[in-house]
Structures are given as C-alpha cells and as structure tokens.
C-alpha cells in the first residue's frame, strides 16, 4: 500500500520531465538532422565544425560565460563570507535575492537607461568634468549586467556552504597555529568548495546561452551561441541549424556538469605515508 502511494507521487514529476525536458531534447536532436528543406542530412554538423564563424561563436560563448562566472565568483564569495558574519544575515540575503523577482527584461531596460549617453552614469561622470562616454554596447557593460543578474545564484549556494561549515574547525585551525588567511586557504575554502561548484554550475551554464542581454546591452556586437540560435529560429527559419547549435550547447553543459560535479574524493588506500 505504502509503496503504491510513493510511486504515485512520482507521476506528476515524471510527466513533467517527459513532456518538458526529455521530449524537447529529443526533438532538438531530431531536428538537427534536417536541413532547411526538411531533408535528412548531416550537413548541419559538418557546417558547424567546418565554419570558422560557428567555432568563433562557440569560443566566444564559452569565453564570455567564463569571464562572467569569474567576475560573479570574485564578487560573490567575499560577499557570502561577510554575509555569514553579519547580524541580520537573513535580511541582507533577502535583499540580495530580491532583484531576481524582477523580470529580466525590465532589468535590462533599466540598465539601458543607466548606461545610455544621457543616462544616470554619464550624468554622474559629467559632474567630474568627464565627457559622456560610450558605455552601452560595450563588452564591459555586457559583463557587468550579466554578472549583476547572476550574482544571487552564485551567492546563495556559497552562503549555504559557509553556513554549514563548522565554526569549531576554524577554531581548531587557529589553535594549531594557522593565521586567519592560512585557515581560510586550508580549511574554509576547501570545505565550502561544493557551494562554489554549485554556484559555478548555476551561473556558467545559463551564461552560455544568454541572448537577451547580448542584444540589449551588448548591442549584438557580442554574438554568442544563444544569439545564433535565436537568429536561426526566428529570422533565417533554419531550425535544423539552430537545433544543431542547441545540441552542441547541451553537450557542453553536460561536460561542465561533469567537470564541476561531486566526484568520489576517496583516495586509494595504500602505504602512502609509510616509510
């Protein structure tokens, strides 16, 4: 009886998974083997791996996603660390999460307002006698906005990791003679690494396929795989090629998941230390 109830609980989730995860992925893979005239072909893949354009795009996507992730991480780790020692940390955390409740498009438009030639930032610089600068449609603006949007997704898992860290271990390290910095390097950082990995996954993977921000803030000068997919589906109507890029993206994501996933850290037994 109990067993039956348990399996019943899986049904909605299973259906969801089937309809909205597995079926679309299969469809994408299927689509990727057809050309624009609905004929079966491997040409899409051939084009992808032979044309410099697509490979440059791939490289660009990975590179920008990498830069965004690094910037986000560099901001998020210290932020999460400080947050942990703050008095009203739950309130501060809420303030960090709050912007995620606002629509992405709205936030992007807000930044257009801020970065524009007559925008808030240029006005501010004007008070110091600095002439209006081209801020919008630059790489820096693109990375800044992307990092801004991703930061909550990085801070949250790192914050949780630091919260779970046993304060006693930090004390033990200090007691054994380690300075605060040595303690951080040898104890705090390794023991919060799983939080960092989750954060990297949560940021790097979505960053691979950004297209709205590349368009609105990056001014389409940064062409990533996300923008290419959008172009193929909506403009050139070459669904086959769009799907092919999609397949490449999905594979890349799996690779990233594998690289950052928890691996069995258990070392091989043996007389490593025995003289």
């Amino acid at each position, binding site marked *: 009886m109990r067993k039956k109830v348990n399996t019943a609980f899986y049904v909605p989730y299973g259906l969801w998974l089937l309809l909205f995860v597995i079926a679309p992925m299969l469809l994408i893979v299927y689509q990727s083997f057809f050309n624009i005239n609905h004929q079966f072909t491997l040409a899409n893949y051939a084009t992808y791996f032979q044309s410099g354009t697509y490979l440059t795009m791939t490289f660009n996507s990975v590179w920008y996603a990498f830069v965004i992730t690094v910037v986000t991480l560099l901001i998020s780790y210290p932020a999460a660390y400080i947050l942990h020692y703050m008095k009203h940390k739950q309130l501060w955390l809420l303030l960090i999460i709050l912007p995620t409740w606002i629509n992405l498009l709205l936030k992007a438009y807000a930044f257009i307002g801020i970065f524009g030639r007559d925008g808030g930032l240029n006005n501010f610089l004007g008070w110091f006698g600095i002439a209006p600068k081209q801020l919008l449609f630059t790489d820096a603006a693109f990375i800044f906005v992307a990092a801004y949007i991703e930061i909550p997704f990085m801070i949250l898992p790192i914050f949780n990791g630091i919260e779970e860290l046993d304060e006693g271990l930090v004390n033990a390290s200090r*007691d054994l003679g380690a300075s605060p910095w040595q303690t951080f390097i040898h104890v705090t950082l390794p*023991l919060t690494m799983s939080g960092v990995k989750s954060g990297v996954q949560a940021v790097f993977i979505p960053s691979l396929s950004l297209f709205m921000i590349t368009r609105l803030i990056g001014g389409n000068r940064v062409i990533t795989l996300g923008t290419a997919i959008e172009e193929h589906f909506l403009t050139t109507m070459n669904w086959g090629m769009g799907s092919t890029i999609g397949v490449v993206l999905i594979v890349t994501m799996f690779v990233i998941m594998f690289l950052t996933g928890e691996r069995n850290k258990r070392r091989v037994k043996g007389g490593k230390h025995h003289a």
Partner: protein
Amino acid sequence: MGAAIVELKHVDKNYGDTTVLRDINITLEEGKFYTLLGPSGSGKTTILRAIAGFLNVTAGDIYIAGKRVNDIPANLRQVNTVFQDYALFPHMDVFENVAYGLRIRKVDKASVEKRVLDALKMVRLDNLIDRQISELSGGQQQRVAIARAIVLEPKVLLLDEPLSALDAKLRKDMQYELRELQQRLGITFLFVTHDQEEALALSDEIFVMNDGKVQQSGTPVDIYDEPINHFVADFIGESNIVSGRMVADYKVKFNGKVFDCADAGMRPNEPVEVVLRPEDLDITSAEKAKVTVSIDTQLFRGDFYEIVAYDDGHNEWLIHSTNPAPADGSLVGLYWDTEDMHVMRFGESEEDFDARLDSYEGE
C-alpha cells in the same frame, strides 16, 4: 613548587549584563594535571577558551609562560586544545590532520613524517594513518584529536570535556590513558569536565567552579574531605548536609545534641552546616548510636547498598553500606568517627578557609 606556566589574574568576562566569569585567579604549574570541574554554565569552558585565545576577557590578565597574552591571537599562543567534538578536518586523512600544525609551521618533510608517526604511536593509532576521519570510531577520533595537539609539543594542553562523547567503558580506559600520557609527556594538562569522579581520579589539583567563580581549589583528597561550602560538598561525591550550630571549638550541635568534631576557629554559636559522607556512616545498634533513624528504602548498587533513612527531625540520611540494612521501617542507629564529620561556615572565602584550617591543624 614548579614554575607557573599559566596565570589568570582577576579575570572577568561579561556578555552584556550577564557575568560568566568573576574575579578568576588561577595559577597552573609546569607538568601537572589540573581539572576545572563544575556544572554546565559554571564558566569552566569559558576559562579554557580565554586561555586558548578564542574569546577576549572583559577585565584581568592572562599570562602564558610569564608573558601577558591578552592581545595575542590564538594561533600565536603556546597552548593547544583538544575540542569537545574533536573538530577534526573532514577533508584530510588521519596523517594530514595530525600534520596540519607542523605544515603550518613549515617543518621539513622528514621531521613531519617522524613527529606525526611518534604522536600517533603515543595514542596507539599508528596503524590507521591513511584512514579518512569519517571511517573512525568516536574513540579513535578522540585519539587523533589528542595526537594533533600533542604533536606540536605545547607547554599546556587544554582538554574541553574530551571524554563526554564516549561510552562508559571506553571513557574509563581513556581516563587511564590520559593520566599516563600526561605523566609521560610531562606537560601541563588543563582538563574541563562536569564529571566529579573523572576529576577526582585524574587530577593533581581541581578547581571547583560554580556561577562563574572558583569555589574551591585543591587536591582531590582535600576537596573531598574538606569541602568549603554546601555547593562543593553536594557536587563532589554524595553527602548528608545537616544545619547546626557551633557551640565551641570542636563541639557542634545539631538534632538537639552536641557532637565532638574536628573543626575549630569559628564564632561561638555560629550557624554552620555539617557534612557526613554516606560511606562514613555505619549502621549500628541503638546503644552505640549517635543518631537514630528509620530505614526508608534501599537499593542494591552492585558494589554497595544505597540506603535512605529519616531521623525523627525529618532529616534525610544517605548511607552507603557493603551490607544490607534491616527491613524498611525498622529503627537503626548511625555511628561515625569524629574526624569523618566536617563543619562548614556560611559564605567563607577560600583564603579565610585555608587560614582557619592552618590556625588549628598545626596544633
């Protein structure tokens, strides 16, 4: 007297309005086993953390090896701690845990290997060197924690209730091992516990703590035989405490009768409390009785009978006897030797207590 290695002078600790430590004065000498004994919340762990450097005291000075360390961070103090929950690093194996402090000190590789092995041999764990921490039992983790601390050859080892997580049998074994280890290493141990038996068995000297104050300090025998006040008498071992009046030197009156005692130096007619240990009471016939009581209950405890009886003044008497008492409800006599009885004054300070004892014990 050995050289003082740790000194606390007039140490206070407040958290806002709550006082955790008040005027703590403690001197630890080289190579001795000390115990801070008290109930939870008495401030004993706070003292340990203050010496280790995990908290700042509100007032007073702490000296280690003659140097004031109030402003020296934990990592630069020459003391090491064995933590209550061991606090072993889960991402390192046994070897790396023990080697941690040596690696921080940039000790060369060969010495690290040798010293870690020596320390692990000392706690008899040299066969588990490559184990992960999660694969160890509580007792083994305990030993790693000790090895990790002693490998650094500290002048003082602080132990924060290290045996509290172990089962009774293992705990007894570890008590012997700790005592032996301390004697072999010849370093000062400061051991925190709420277990009075543990404290009595292990220590050269005990500090009995309550309510943020050191109530009494001394050898286990002194503290057991001559507790300074009601709290110490009650906390260390079991005791019968009766209120009475000091009629004259060596004469105390309670239950309407005057008894000979071994205490003196008090005001005439001063109200006092009288302590009688349950194992010092003998059940005897009515003619020899100092007090007559009626048996209420008795429990067989294995190595003795625990007997509860009441006198006609409704005072409860606890008696430990190797032989069973007569049936419940029967009247028996209680007898004790004069020097088994200990008289305590109300609110006497430790200095006054010691001075008074010296004044007549020398006679």
